[in-house]
């Protein structure tokens, strides 16, 4: 009886350790993915790291309940995406509250890349760097203007060289759906960016 109890406890402890090891492996494997998903929404490194960290903490708490562990990455991506959107909304609300105060005080015009802009002034960037940043800014605006479903497909396809099949697995949608969404997303992006270029030229 005593031996059996010992064996049972031993096996449970082993299962616990295996679970920890498995989570650690998945953390190492998916941390960059979670960060990039969060960054694609927030476009701020610190915020994205915070959100990804929070997503991992949440994933850790629920890891035992996850029946199909092979779906971890998909689960993490969706969770991170949702959390990042929540953070973005919260940031916008906060900015909306703070904006009148800052403008009245003549401090600065609120911009998401405020910190970056200050850094640029000190670095005195070359024309190429400025041009590249502007391009990136246009691209981000175009991505943000996409509907959420298309946006997520574009982001996941652009991260870590995911192919259609992998993106489909991450979003739990068929490959054909990914293909059509990606096509639509690229078309809309090109249209938007062309319009921006034309608008500036005129």
């Amino acid at each position, binding site marked *: 009886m005593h031996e059996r109890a010992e064996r*049972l*406890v031993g096996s*449970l*402890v082993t*299962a*616990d350790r295996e*679970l*920890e090891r498995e*989570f*650690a492996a998945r*953390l*190492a494997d998916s*941390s*960059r993915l979670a*960060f*990039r998903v969060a*960054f*694609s929404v927030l476009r701020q*490194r610190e915020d*994205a*790291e915070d959100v*990804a*960290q929070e997503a*991992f*903490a949440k994933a*850790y*708490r629920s890891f*035992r309940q996850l029946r199909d562990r092979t779906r971890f990455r998909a689960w993490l991506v969706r969770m991170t995406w949702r959390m990042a959107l929540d953070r973005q909304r919260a940031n916008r609300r906060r900015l909306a509250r703070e904006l009148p105060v800052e403008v009245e005080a003549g401090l600065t015009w609120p911009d998401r890349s405020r910190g970056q802009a200050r850094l640029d002034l000190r670095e005195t960037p070359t024309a190429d760097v400025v*041009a*590249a940043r*502007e*391009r*990136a800014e*246009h*691209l*981000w605006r175009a*991505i943000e203007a996409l509907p959420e479903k298309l946006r997520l497909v*574009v*982001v996941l*396809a*652009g*991260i870590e060289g995911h192919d259609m099949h992998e993106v489909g697995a991450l979003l739990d949608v068929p490959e054909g759906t990914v293909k059509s969404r990606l096509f639509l997303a*690229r078309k809309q*992006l*090109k249209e938007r*960016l*062309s319009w*921006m*270029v034309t608008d*500036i*030229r005129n």
Partner: protein
Amino acid sequence: MDGYRHQELTDETLEKDLEAALGVDPSPEFLPRIRARIANERMQEGWFSSVSWQWARVAAVVTAVAVIAVWTLRDPSRAPREAHITDTPPVESTTPPVDSVLRAPALVASSAESPKPVSAPVARAVRSTRTPAVVPRPEVLISLDEAAALRQLIVAVAARQVQATDIPQLAAESAPLPMIEEIVLEPIKLRPLDGLESE
């Protein structure tokens, strides 16, 4: 000013730009920070929520339930009592029938024994129960002779050998009281004592 002004917007360009925009790496502290956070979570949860201890908690709860169940089943005098009490109707008559009078109260010789103290739980039980079958009757302590005499009297009354009015005490009690005569007291006269007068 605009980067797209100098380059034609092809699929390849767009693809390259997307990869460049999304290919941002986290800071080197990112992974250690997550690990520290997870370790913190682990400590907060502690041993109490680990798989092995979850099983241990389940086992403890099951054992406790089993022990309570066995204990309750082994001691049948505990639980069903309340049910009996509520099921039986309350006693309406205050005068007990002759039969019960003959049998109760139990007459116990007092001898030198002191009356047994009634413990609190028993007293509570007596108060809460309303059936004569369940209520333990208090002992009436009288001497052996008195007990024997009372028994004889009760038996005789029951057999109609003795009329209650035959009992002298009762007859005396039922007889008319004598007239009260006024007591006449003579007035007290104060006189000096003989001895004191001579002095």
